[in-house]
Every structure is written in structure tokens, then in C-alpha cells.
């Protein structure tokens, strides 16, 4: 499914820079995420979770940022089990890249959720441990 980012609708979509963040995020997604989560965000049954309307994608920003920074393993997502681990990408991706890719994911595949900023990623990163 295509991106839903009509800039004239929705309170968060009017934020300046949202479109730019989504475009940049798509590039990050294609480089680091697409193999496992797939171009349509559908994931791979039993292996890699979908990014479509899941509680982790649409829920707490801090939780979502933490998953990208520190990875995730052997955690059921919306009552489904996935065998492959999510790698920790905190040392691979910069704050802005994480903000962009999560903003892209939260506004693609039928998702509609608020943008994530580099400052928010930085804050979660600083709280680590």
C-alpha cells in the first residue's frame, strides 16, 4: 500500500519537514529494513513481524525507538511469534536516520501516526541503561 501523507489533512501532517522525513526514511528503510519487513511492510509469517497497524508501530514512540536502538528478540507481537531477532541498529544508524525511518513506517502501509524527531531519538538514546 502506498504512503498516506496528504499534507493538507491531519494535525501532525501539517508539520513542516514531515514529507522530507518520509522521503529520507524510505531510503533508510530500503537499505536496512526491507529484507525482513518487506516492501509492503507485511513482514514474513513466523519470522519477521509486519509493520502494519501493530501495537508497537502505532504505540509508544519511546518503545519503538528503543527497538531500533537496542533490538528485540523472542517477544510476541500482537499474539504472534516471530523467530528472527531484530538487530540493534543504535550504532549503525544516526538519530536523524532513525527518526526518518520510523516516521516513514508510521506513515506508510496504511499506518497513520505522528512523526518522530531526531531529538526524541536522542533523548531515548541518552536514557539507555
Amino acid at each position, binding site marked *: 500500500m502506498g504512503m498516506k501523507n496528504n499534507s493538507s489533512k491531519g494535525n501532525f501532517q501539517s508539520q513542516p519537514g514531515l514529507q522530507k522525513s518520509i522521503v529520507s526514511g524510505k531510503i533508510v528503510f530500503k537499505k536496512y529494513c526491507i529484507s525482513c519487513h518487506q516492501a*509492503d511492510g507485511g513482514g514474513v509469517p513466523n519470522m519477521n513481524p509486519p509493520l502494519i497497524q501493530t501495537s508497537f508501530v502505532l504505540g509508544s514512540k519511546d518503545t519503538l525507538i528503543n527497538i531500533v536502538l537496542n533490538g528485540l528478540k523472542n517477544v510476541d507481537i500482537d499474539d504472534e511469534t516471530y*523467530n528472527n531477532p531484530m*538487530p*540493534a541498529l543504535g550504532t549503525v544508524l544516526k538519530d536523524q536516520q532513525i527518526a526518518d525511518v520510523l516516521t516513514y513506517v508510521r506513515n506508510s502501509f496504511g499506518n497513520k501516526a505522528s512523526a518522530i524527531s531526531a531529538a526524541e531519538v536522542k533523548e531515548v538514546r541518552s536514557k539507555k541503561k
Partner: protein
Amino acid sequence: MKKSIFYGSLITVVTFCIFSFTKISSLQSGHLPKVNSDNAGLTLPAGFNASIVADHLGEVRHIAVTKEGDIYAKLGGAKNGKGILFLKNNNGSLEEQNGFGDYGGTAMRINGGYLYASSNTTVYRYKLNENDEVIDPSNPETIVTGLLDRGEHNSKSVTFDNDGNIYVNIGAYSNSCQVQDRTPGSMGRPGCPILDSAGGIWQFKADKADQTYGDGTHYAIGLRNVVGLDWNHQDNSLFVMQHGRDQLHDLFPQYYTDKESAILPAECMYEIHKGDNAGWPYIYYDQIQKKQILMPEYGGNGKKTSDKKYLNPVIAFPGHLAPNDLLFYTGNQFPEKYRNGAFIAFHGSWNRSPEPQAGYFVVFVPFKDGKPTGKWEIFADGFAGIKDIASPGNAQHRPCGLAQGPDGSLYVSDDVKGTIYRISYHK
């Protein structure tokens, strides 16, 4: 997972609905559908036809067909507390009987008057009566237990030799033994410690209760993950299909383009003898260069070979196709060229992006005396129900298990919807 179907293309959704409706109608008659005129949507060689003999069973992994034409089907996850389904043949129609075994898993094989089944940690067996019915479904004998299950590659498949042994695969709980699994640039763990208890094949006694690692023989090492394995009775040896490593480009983009990564490394068939080492995680087999190549995690760059040599594959298939079952055909129904040949159920790829996914078919390789005598060919295709498979979640069916029926028909199971196909040959 279910959501991905609904967010797939509209065509997929519509096809899915029509398909479901048809099958549910058939089921309501009390019998499972027997024949349909369009070869159940499959493409087959001339003279073969296919029908759906059971449908909507759940996540069917491996299957076993008895001499009476009954089917035992192992579910990946237990449904309503039943992990094994029993479909009884009633004059050509299959009727679902009471299920049993409250565990998910993969293996389902009949050997020596017993039905063998596996969870992700344990191999059980159930004694059969003279009609191949399980005598006591609630009290299986535990044959092997305590096998590693750390999520990744946790399925346990089995096969048997002629000397009372059972062979069990224990998959590596890792892609390539990186310090940080599936993390870009992370290097391999020195002396990969996973190999002491996983990433290989173990041999146990088929009739001895409560065995675990110490009771068995570490039969072969350096096999990342095997789901399909079978004993070749013509040359009395074990053959396995390895799931090769994933994500060369994702993890080492400096050495691999995404196009190279979509086809490398080979999915390998190995003939295994006791003590063999197939080389995971130190090497992979490159089917283009026809060489064992050092893994990038262990100093490789896509070209460097290893000083140490490992077992070479018997056949090298394109990467990522995910071979989930292997069966040497011993029936008489199929034409001469198929006798003693290998059928392989390829579950289909997931890590070929941005290339389309591939596999989702059953392959045939002619064999004689345990050696391939020709090139591999696609035998049955069309399981996915769509031409371009952008994402695995779009596939309507994925081949997962194979079994030979008493009349020499080939049965194929699907673990998306739980469809069982029967493929027959008519002159």
C-alpha cells in the same frame, strides 16, 4: 500475519475470498474435496494431475500417508490443543477424525509401525495398530528430548536408516554466527560455539526412550538449518537440504550488491556420512563460481576461498528458496524417469528484496544409485496463486511437506492455509 493478507493487493484478497468460499462449501458436505478440474491451480508436467484432498487444516508442516491412504498432518502450532491431525480415507474422501498431541512442531513420519512427531525440542512416537491408526493418542513415547529451541531455526525434522537409527536436525539459532546476529558488519564468533549443540544432524536410536544430546551421535556438523532430509535406500545414505545463510548485502554491502545477494549463497543438497562437515558458518557454496567461499563474517569478501575444505554439495540450487522437505520417490505410478529421484518442496524465499521472491514450488531431480543423473526441474508450480510474489505474505500457499501415497501418488502440504494436494500420473 493475517493482516498482511488483507493489506495485500486487491486481486489477492478477492481471489482469497472466492477460494475460501469454494472450499468451505465443500467441507460442509462432511467430506473433504476430492478432485477439481483445474489441477488445483498447479502447473504440472504432461500426464500429471493434482487435486486438493484436504483444506483449511491450519499451518500444516510435514505429513505422513499410511498404506490405507489416511493422512497424519503435523501443525506448526497446536490448534484447539491438537498439534496432529488425522484424516481418515473413506472410499477416496478424507474425513477429519479427532486430533491429538498438544504441541506444535514439524516432523511427521511413519517408521517401523510407529508414527513419529516432533515439537521444537522433543521427538515422540505413537504405536500404530495393523490399520496404521494410533493406539493411544494421549501417551506417546518420548524418544529424544531436551533439544535446543532458541526461536530461530527451531524446527526438528526426522528421517530413518535401515539399522534402527533416527536422524534429527538441530538448526543453528543464528544466521551466520555473528557476535550480534543479523547486525550489519558484526563479525563471526571465533570457533563458533553454536556448533557444539546445534547447526548439525544428530543420530539416535529410533526405539529408545528419553535420549538427549549425550545419548546420541553428533553425526554431521556445519549445517546451518535443515528442514528436509531423507534416507536414500539405493546407496544407503542420508541426504539433507540446507537452508543457506541470509542477507549478504544487508550485512556486508561493501562486498555484495543486492542482486548478488538475491541469488547467493546456494541452497545445497548434501549427501551426508558420519563425521561430515558442511562448513557453516565459515564458508558458503557459491553456485556461480562453483566454489566454497569464505563467509564475510570470517574474513571473506565474496571471492576469497577457505584454506580448509568442507563437504561439497551434491546439487546447488539458487539462494533463499527454503527447501522444507525432501523425498526420494520409490513408487511405481510415475514414469520411469521419476523412480528413485528426489522431490524437494521449496517453501519460497523472503530475503531477495528488491528482487521478486522465488521458490514456492516443488522441484524434481532424477537420481540413480544415489547420484543425480540430470538437471533439476520445476515439477509443480503455482502454489502461491500469484505471478509476482513481492512479499511472502502474499502467497496463498507455500509447499512445506511431502509424502508418497500407497498408490505412488505424491502428496504436498501447505503451511499457509493447510491445504494438502495429491499429484497423480495417468497414462
